[in-house]
C-alpha cells in the first residue's frame, strides 16, 4: 500500500511510472501507432550505418575468422588438437554445446510461454530474444558436429536415411534423441520467428523508399496485407506454435540432460537432471537477453520501448530460476550423502575439494551467492549493475556445465584410470570464436530486420482500447507529451 501511494505521488515527476497501478510502464507514454512503427523501422531503413555497428561487426567478424581457423585445423588434424583424453572424452565441445543451447531457451520462453501467460511486457523483447535463440542454437549445434571430427562422415549415424551400407541409427541412444530434439527445436524456432516477422516485413515493405528494398521486403513478407481474416488465423497459428514450442523447449534440455543422466557415471546418473537443466537453461538465457538488451537499448535509443520494467521482470525471472538451480545443486549434494553410495560420495567430495574444486566454488559464487543482490529493487533497476550481473550469471552457467562434464569424468570408478583435463588453445579459440559468430549474426539481424515486433508493440498502446484483455490498453494517458 505504501509503495502504491508513494508511486502515485511520484508519478508527476517520473513519467515511467504508471499512475493507476504504480508499476513501471512497459513502454513510455506518448507513443502512437505511427511513432512506434517509425522508431523501429528507421533503425533498418537508413543509409547511415552507425559507427558502433561497423566496429562491433568487425570485431566479432575477426573472432569468427578465429573460429573458422580453429575448425579448419581441427578438420585437418582431428580432435587430437583438443584437450580431450580418456577418461575426459567430453570436454569443451559438450560444455559449450549445453551452454549455448541453454542460452537459446530464454528466447523460446519469452516468445512462447510468456505469450501463453499473456505477459504482454514480453512484446518488445520477444523478437530479438528469439533471434538470439536461433543464433545460439546454431552455435550449439556446431559443437557436437565438429566433435565427431569428420562430420561429413557422421551423417549416416545421425539421420535415418537409406544408404548404400544399409546402416541405420540406433534409436535407443540418447545421442540420437538429441539429434531429433535439437533439429526440431531449430526448425520450429525458425518457423515461429519467421511467421512472427511476416506482418512486420509487410510494414518494412510499405515504409521503404528504395524500389529494390521494397521488392526484397515485399518478397519476404509473402504479400502480407493485414486482412483481419488473415490476422485471426495468424493469431491462432501463433498461439498454436507457442503451445507447441512450450513442451518442445522443456523437452530439448530434458533430452540433453538424458545424454548425461542415462549414463551410469556418478555425478551424471541422477533423476534431478531434467528439471535442473531446464531451469538452468532459462536462467542463463535471461542473462544473455539482458547482456544483449542493455547495449541495444542504449545504442539505438530504445529506452522507451525496452524499459526498466523489462529489466526488472527479467531479473525476477532470474532470481526464481536461480533458486531452482540452487535446489538442483543442493539435491545433488544431499543425495551424495543420503544415498550412502561411496562412488557418489567421492565424486561430490572430489567436485568440491579435488584439484578442480575452484571451479565448483567459483560457480556457486556466480550462480547462487552474487545473484542474491537482485533482491534489492534499487539494484535491479540499475542498468550497469544488471549488465555486470548478467555476465556473472553467464560465466557461472558455463562453469556449471564444465563442472558437470569434466569433474564427473576425470575421476570415476577406477583410480588407475584417473586422469585430468586441460583445454588447449584450439578449444579456447573455438569457444571464443563462437561468441564472435553469434555476435556477427546478431549484428546482421539488427541491421536488416525489425528487431522489435512492431505489430505486437502496437497492441501495447492505449489507442487499442478495443482489446480489453491487454491491461495496459485501459490506461488513459493524460498529460503525455
Amino acid at each position, binding site marked *: 500500500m505504501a509503495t502504491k501511494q508513494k508511486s502515485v505521488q511520484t508519478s508527476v515527476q517520473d513519467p515511467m511510472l504508471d499512475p493507476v497501478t504504480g508499476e513501471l510502464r512497459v513502454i513510455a507514454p506518448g507513443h*502512437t*501507432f*505511427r511513432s512506434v*512503427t517509425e522508431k523501429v523501422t528507421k533503425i533498418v531503413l537508413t543509409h547511415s550505418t552507425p559507427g558502433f555497428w561497423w566496429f562491433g561487426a568487425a570485431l566479432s567478424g575477426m573472432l569468427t575468422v578465429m573460429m573458422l581457423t580453429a575448425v579448419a585445423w581441427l578438420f585437418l588434424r582431428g580432435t587430437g588438437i583438443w584437450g580431450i583424453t580418456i577418461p575426459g572424452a567430453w570436454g569443451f565441445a559438450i560444455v559449450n554445446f549445453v551452454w549455448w543451447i541453454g542460452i537459446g531457451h530464454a528466447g523460446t520462453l519469452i516468445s512462447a510461454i510468456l505469450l501463453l501467460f499473456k505477459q504482454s511486457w514480453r512484446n518488445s523483447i520477444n523478437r530479438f530474444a528469439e533471434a538470439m535463440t536461433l543464433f545460439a542454437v546454431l552455435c550449439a549445434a556446431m559443437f557436437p558436429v565438429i566433435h565427431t571430427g569428420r562430420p561429413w562422415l557422421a551423417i549416416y549415424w545421425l539421420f*535415418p536415411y537409406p544408404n548404400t551400407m544399409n546402416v*541405420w*541409427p*540406433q*534409436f*535407443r541412444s540418447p545421442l540420437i*534423441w538429441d539429434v*531429433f*530434439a535439437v533439429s*526440431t527445436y531449430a*526448425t*520450429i524456432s525458425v*518457423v*515461429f520467428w519467421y*511467421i512472427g516477422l*511476416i*506482418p512486420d516485413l*509487410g*510494414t518494412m*515493405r*510499405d*515504409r521503404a523508399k528504395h524500389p529494390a528494398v521494397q521488392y526484397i521486403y515485399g*518478397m519476404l513478407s*509473402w*504479400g*502480407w*496485407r*493485414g*486482412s*483481419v*481474416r*488473415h*490476422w*485471426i*488465423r*495468424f*493469431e*491462432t*497459428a501463433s498461439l*498454436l*506454435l507457442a503451445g*507447441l*514450442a512450450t*513442451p*518442445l523447449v522443456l*523437452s530439448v534440455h530434458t*533430452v540433453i540432460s538424458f545424454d548425461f543422466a542415462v549414463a551410469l557415471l556418478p555425478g551424471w546418473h541422477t533423476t534431478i537432471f531434467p528439471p535442473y537443466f531446464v531451469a538452468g537453461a532459462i536462467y542463463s538465457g535471461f542473462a544473455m537477453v539482458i547482456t544483449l538488451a542493455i547495449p541495444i537499448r542504449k545504442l539505438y535509443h530504445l529506452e522507451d520501448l525496452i524499459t526498466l520494467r523489462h529489466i526488472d521482470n527479467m531479473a525476477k525471472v532470474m532470481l526464481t530460476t536461480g533458486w531452482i538451480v540452487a535446489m538442483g545443486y543442493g539435491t545433488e549434494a544431499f543425495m551424495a550423502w543420503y544415498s550412502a553410495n561411496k562412488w557418489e560420495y567421492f565424486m561430490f567430495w572430489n567436485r568440491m575439494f579435488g584439484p578442480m574444486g575452484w571451479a565448483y566454488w567459483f560457480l556457486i559464487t556466480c550462480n547462487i551467492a552474487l545473484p542474491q543482490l537482485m533482491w534489492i529493487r534499487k539494484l535491479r533497476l540499475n542498468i550497469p549493475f544488471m549488465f555486470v550481473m548478467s555476465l556473472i550469471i553467464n560465466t557461472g552457467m558455463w562453469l556449471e556445465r564444465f563442472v558437470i562434464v569434466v569433474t564427473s569424468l576425470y575421476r570415476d570408478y577406477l583410480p588407475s584410470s584417473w586422469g585430468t583435463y586441460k583445454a588447449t588453445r584450439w578449444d579456447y579459440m573455438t569457444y571464443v570464436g563462437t561468441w564472435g559468430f553469434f555476435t556477427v549474426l546478431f549484428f546482421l539481424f539488427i541491421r536488416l530486420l525489425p528487431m522489435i515486433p512492431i*505489430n*505486437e508493440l*502496437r*497492441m501495447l498502446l492505449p*489507442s*487499442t*482500447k*478495443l*482489446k480489453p484483455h491487454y491491461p495496459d490498453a485501459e490506461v488513459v494517458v493524460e498529460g503525455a507529451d
Partner: protein
Amino acid sequence: MKIAPPREGMYGLLAEFNTPGELVKAAQSAYNAGYRRMDCYTPYPVEEAAEAIGFTRYHDRTSLITLVGGLLGGLAMYQLETWVSIFAFPLNIGGRPLYSWPAFIIPAYEWTILWAGLSAAFGMMAMNGLPQLYHPLFNAPNFRDGATTDKFFLCLEATDPKFSKAESRAFLEKHAPISVVEVVY
C-alpha cells in the same frame, strides 16, 4: 493449372478510418446492411472487426490442420523407428527386446511437435492465400502508407451482389471515414 483471365475494372471501395472503433462500427453496419464480400485491413489483429464481418475463430481451420499434421508426424517417426529397429537393422544388445518402445517415444514426440508446428505455420499461410505478391489493394494510393502502420480500412468488394458504386460509396461516407477510394485491378 487454370490461369485466371486478366481482370479489369473495379475491385471495390476502400474506406479509411483513424481508429479501430470507427472501423468496427462501420464493418458491423455494413454486415447488417447485407454486405458479405468485404474485408477489413488493420495494422495489428482487431478481433472485433473480424467478428463484425462474420469471421470468427470457428471459421478458422488452422487448429485442425495442426492436429492432423502433428499426429501424422508422430506416427511416421514411431513407425520408422519400429521398422528400423526390428526389420531393417536389428541389433541384439545383451538380449534386450528389439521393440523397445519407451526409447522410441522421444523422437516420435519431437516429430509430433515438428510436423504440428510446420502444419500450423504453412497451413495458416496457405489458407490465407499467401504468398500472393500482387493484390489490387496495393493500387490504392493510401493503402500502403496506412494499412501496415496506423490506419484501419474497410473494403466493400465489387463482386458483392449488394454492391453499387454510388450507393456503397454513400453508405461508407455515412461513417465519416478519412477517405473513400476506388480500388481498381
